[in-house]
């Protein structure tokens, strides 16, 4: 219960601040600049989502339903960009094309003075699209695989053409998955800080950060944050609605049969080209750029102590967050699954608050909290870990609850009828059964926390540099060489929990 209330605390505090100075807050919100900001953010969100759909749906179809050569390889490659944080992607593109960038170095001898910059809307759009489309790809793929092939066969038997079947049978069934995936992408874009700040595109999150950092205009920052949260809540509400509808489209269990494979024929060359282009842009270029800059910095001098310190700090903060989130998730999962009731429902709802909050909003709320209520906590490691727990508890809780739901109450009752007390049953039966799920949740929290940028930027103790802040710091001042090694280390460190997570499936 304590955990749940604590998780909801930042939001409550934010509302309190904004309400406490409603006049100033309203003034901020009604300013013309704010309207422009809303319009820009929405434009970016819509553009990214639309492009991501255009990339993800064909990719999903190629890799699930056609005889595309190397389907397995493309399946893995297409999902991989998900592990690249948006700010590393932005760093890679900017450092490749920007002033003093990789391309610039290459074309300099040819007498080309300066390349057109990709910063601004274009850069933000490109980066966010390339690193968020997997959020759409995964649900669409899953949905395609679940489709009942008999429906399509029935339509074919009724004399419809292949294309007609795709249009009238397949697409309508994919709509819920596309909707759910789009909303995930939209939520990501709205709450993203790394890519937009590196690409110098003014969005909600960067404006909040600037207001907070430059002028310490806390009411202004809080008001914008509240507006952003409101926008995200609308999206979440939409997401919940599509998810409810999704159930209608699911085919009966047991109907999973071999999929009909579409023979691409001559079309497989354009299809391969498409997959290749996406993989090149979203995976090959960023990794190549990182490697290039790393080699450059090896040739020069790498500040190894700084890299080591940042790595240690990242591991420490994310490790603590993962442990704390897992420890908090277990009692909540047990409570909400086994002892359902109004109390448990309330605890569960509160625990999921973090899901609706961008990192920067939680960080901001905690700054207020730390400077006004619990003075000692401001800019302490504990505060940072707490912010991570608030943000990522839903991830750990989701998996812990899912594994708790798989434990039959009969099994626990059987143990009790054998003379074990409730506590002993929890220890000897329930705990071993949910342990894999809890561990997976911890791994997921670790993976997400180590990438988190804005909360780390705002809440980390002074001098506490992590890999994420190193990369961001280096990029925002144009020292591309300095960011490469931390970025590679971050990707390498993330690979371990990611492997643990996927090996489980």
């Amino acid at each position, binding site marked *: 219960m304590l955990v749940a209330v604590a998780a909801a605390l930042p939001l409550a505090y934010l509302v309190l601040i904004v309400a406490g100075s409603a006049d100033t807050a309203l003034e901020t919100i009604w300013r013309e600049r704010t309207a422009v900001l809303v319009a820009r953010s929405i434009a970016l969100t819509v553009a990214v989502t639309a492009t991501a759909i255009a990339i993800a749906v064909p990719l999903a179809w190629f890799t699930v339903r056609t005889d595309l050569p190397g389907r397995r390889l493309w399946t893995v490659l297409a999902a991989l960009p998900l592990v690249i944080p948006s700010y590393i992607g932005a760093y890679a593109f900017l450092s490749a094309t920007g002033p003093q960038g990789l391309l610039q170095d290459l074309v300099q001898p040819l007498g080309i003075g300066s390349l057109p910059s990709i910063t601004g809307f274009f850069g933000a759009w490109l980066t966010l699209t390339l690193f968020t489309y997997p959020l759409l790809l995964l649900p669409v793929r899953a949905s395609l695989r679940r489709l009942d092939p008999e429906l399509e066969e029935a339509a074919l038997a009724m004399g419809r053409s292949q294309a007609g079947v795709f249009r009238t049978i397949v697409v309508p069934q994919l709509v819920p998955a596309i909707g759910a995936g789009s909303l995930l992408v939209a939520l990501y874009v709205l709450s993203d800080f790394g890519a937009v700040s590196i690409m110098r595109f003014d969005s909600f999150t960067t404006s909040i950060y600037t207001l907070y950092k430059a002028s310490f205009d806390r009411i202004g920052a809080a008001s914008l944050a509240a507006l952003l949260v409101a926008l995200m809540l609308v999206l979440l509400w939409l997401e919940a609605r599509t998810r409810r509808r999704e159930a209608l489209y699911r085919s009966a269990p047991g109907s999973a049969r071999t999929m009909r494979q579409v023979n691409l024929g001559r079309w497989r060359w354009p299809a391969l080209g498409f997959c290749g282009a996406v993989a090149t842009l979203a995976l090959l270029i960023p990794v190549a750029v990182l490697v290039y800059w790393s080699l450059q910095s090896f040739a020069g001098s790498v500040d190894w102590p700084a890299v080591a310190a940042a790595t240690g700090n990242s591991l420490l903060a994310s490790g603590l967050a993962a442990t704390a989130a897992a420890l908090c998730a277990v009692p909540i999962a047990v409570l909400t699954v086994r002892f359902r009731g109004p109390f448990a429902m309330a605890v569960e709802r509160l625990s999921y608050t973090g899901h609706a909050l961008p990192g920067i909003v939680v960080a901001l709320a905690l700054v207020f909290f730390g400077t006004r209520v619990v003075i000692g906590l401001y800019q302490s490691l504990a505060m940072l870990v707490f912010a991570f727990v608030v943000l990522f508890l839903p991830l750990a809780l989701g998996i812990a609850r899912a594994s708790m739901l798989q434990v*039959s109450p*009969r*099994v626990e*009752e*059987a*143990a*009790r*009828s*054998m*003379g*074990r*007390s409730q506590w002993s049953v929890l220890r*000897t*039966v329930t705990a*071993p*059964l949910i342990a894999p799920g809890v561990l997976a949740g911890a791994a997921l929290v670790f993976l997400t926390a180590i990438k988190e940028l804005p909360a780390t930027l705002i809440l980390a103790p002074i001098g506490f540099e992590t890999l994420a802040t190193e990369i961001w710091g280096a990029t925002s001042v144009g020292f591309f060489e300095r960011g490469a090694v931390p970025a590679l280390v971050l990707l390498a460190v993330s690979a371990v929990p990611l492997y643990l997570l996927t090996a489980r499936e």
Partner: protein
Amino acid sequence: MSSLSCTGLAKAFGVVRAVDDFTLELEGGTIAALLGPSGCGKTTALRLIAGLERPDAGTVTVGGRELAGPGTFVAPERRRIGVVFQDYALFPHHDVAGNVAYALGRGADPARVREVLELVGLGEHGARPVHELSGGQQQRVALARALAPTPELILLDEPFSNLDAGLRERLREEVREIIRRAGVTALFVTHDQAEALSIAETVAVMRDGRVEQLGTPEEVYSRPASRWVAGFLGEIEVVPGEAADGRVGCELGSFAVEPGLEGPVDVLVRPESVAIAISGPERAASAEVIGRKFYGHDQLVELRLASGQVVRSRRLGFPAWHPGDRVRAWVDGPTDVLPRAPAEAGAGRQ
């Protein structure tokens, strides 16, 4: 070998009264069935006895020890009652022997584990993971696990419902043998009449949260306490009759009944107790065959009596009867006589 006694047990979930005034007495060492249609509260009754649910009212006593009653509630882990669940509820993180050892508690004697596994015929399978076992083997592990701590009473919830028909038949016999050898009082829940009648020594027929009749399989089948029990346990014909001076007469004959039963009555006859022949005893009624269904080993012959009432007679498959045959029909076998009343409650017995 402990006796079980439940009196006035009640349990409601919200407005649904799952168990209501449930009363049951079993002698120690009995193998008893709790039989009823789905939704009658059988499983809830079982869970109340096991202590997995807390009763709203009533008492549970096992071997003279009160486990639940006004001001008393013994936790399930202190009841010494073994439970075999419908889906077996085996611990997926332990192997076969581990499941049994868990029931014996810390420092379980490996010899005892082996002994119990041998009792259920799984002596060689101790090291196997439970998910590798067949349904029948899982069932026996669950039974071994429940029997291991030598409980006073063992409860089985629909123990055979997850098995296919052939295996079910065989396992019923086996399980009955195992329980008998373990010498424990057992109560199993089932909705399958044949299952209850064939393996139990005592059958409690349950309806709407209470026990409607308790008796041996023969008693509940041939002397049902109500028309509902009669109909639930098998096909039944109801023939109107008249009782007077310790005898009852109806269209299919007359027989002695307990004195005290007077006036209009219903005579309950199972089709296999309706005999037919070309010529019959004096008390037989004349009837006409109007239909016949042939099942191989037997046939069900539909008769219209002189009064116009239609009754069925189950006969061996040979000789064949045909619609239009004029026959004599009479009762040859057990019958049950209940006062004719619209309500079934409080129905008397012959």
